[in-house]
């Protein structure tokens, strides 16, 4: 049995919807980081005093959580459905294999620490 880390880059305004969707599926613990990035569409143009200036990196949020292999598809489905708007910029999800998990307070390892 193994564990997977889900790293989801999402629209900042979708955080609460994603959090509620994960909560409903029983995934409570997660880490959120403010990040800046760009996809294949590149940056956007904003208004300057006269004319425009380009912003190449847009603000996004990165959610990280670790789940049991067995729960992976449920977690991914919750994120995808809650974070999707259907327009460019909805973000991406990456899934990694996790070697081990340690709960610092107790020293528990593996599934018990999850």
């Amino acid at each position, binding site marked *: 049995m193994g564990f997977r880390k889900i790293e989801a880059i999402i629209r900042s305004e979708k955080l609460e919807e994603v959090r509620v969707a994960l909560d409903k599926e029983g995934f409570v613990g997660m880490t959120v980081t403010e990040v800046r990035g760009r996809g294949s569409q590149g*940056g956007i143009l904003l*208004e*300057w*005093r*006269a*004319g*425009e*200036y*380009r*912003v*190449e990196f847009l603000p996004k949020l990165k959610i990280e959580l670790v789940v049991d292999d067995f729960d992976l598809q449920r977690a991914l489905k919750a994120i995808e459905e809650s974070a999707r708007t259907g327009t460019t910029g909805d973000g991406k999800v990456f899934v990694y294999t996790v070697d081990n998990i340690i709960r610092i307070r107790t020293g528990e390892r593996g599934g018990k620490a999850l």
Partner: protein
Amino acid sequence: MINSGDTAWVLISTALVILMTPALAFFYGGMVRKKNILSTIMLSVAILALISIQWVLFGYTLAFGPDIKHLIGGLDWLGLIGVGQAPNAVYAATIPHLAFMVFQLAFAVITPALITGAFVERINFPAFLVFTLLWATFVYDPVAHWVWGMGGWLKNMGALDFAGGTVVHITAGVSALALALVIGKRKGYGKYPMEPSNIPLTVLGAFLLWFGWFGFNGGSALTSGGLATLAFVVTNTSAAAAALTWMIISWIHKRPSVLGLSTGAVVGLVAITPAAGFVSPLSAILIGAVASIVSYYSILLRTRSGLDDSLDVFACHGMGGITGALMTGLLAEKAINVAGANGLLFGNPHQFIVQVIAVTVVAVFAFVFSFVFGKIVDAMFSLRAKSEEEEIGLDITQQAESAYN
């Protein structure tokens, strides 16, 4: 004879105008990148300290001291010797001479601060101090004498400049152009995006400038009666007309931008400055609207030219000041201020010609001297920060401080 109402108004106005320099610091600071916001603010507030001393020691006497050949003030009032609590009837008969002096100090301070917008994010601080001192002494003080000093040659010719459209804004605007040429573009300008650090700070600065401008123009009446009130009203009216015009232009282009509206407000304030005591409120609407259009397209042209007058001092203050000075020559009315003159549209084409001459002479003088002083200071102290200092950011490398932690 000292009038307490006049004195109170001029002192309050002085405090308002002194507030404009820190307001400008934030107006400019919000538009530069995060790594340079403190160093940009520093340029303006350092000038407030530096020129306050220069003015007391010798600036005031050079600008307003007893006339020498219509070109410069004599050194009679060096260190403010002889400038006391009694009025100087030549300049302002109802307020202490010291009140007139300190009101003018506030103008001498903000003018070089305006120029700093041209060289933010790459200026070498010690060289900047030397340039500012030279500029204040050999550009601002003589021009202030020509236009406002008793016996000054442009004043004698009848040039109208109520509160400094020519003395403050045209000198600052064209000098900014000269300095932008001498110092060159910021590294990566036009190649990499340069995101403004904090637009709300810029908006706050712009509207504090609007507030302070009531002192700038209203105080220039040097009395607290009807003329100050007229200047107050046309100032607000022109700023509003220019802000609306700029908002509409940016809306047609894309969206009604708050940075655009704020820039428009400042341009409207610049343009009404020379006209404030001479035109009607309806004329003020026209002046503000026209100046907005002129400055908006000046920024676009400047951007296309590739010249890095980083915060568009020339487009906003130079072109705004020129527009205001020329429109004063069109729209001034003796019916509004008997001490003024009629403009071209009120049957006096001569006034328009005088305005053109004053604008041209001052612009050429300020440009040439700024360029030369820029080159001299650059050769002696390097006007530009070191390449790696510019990359890291001037907050850390020039001030050893960080705005955001």
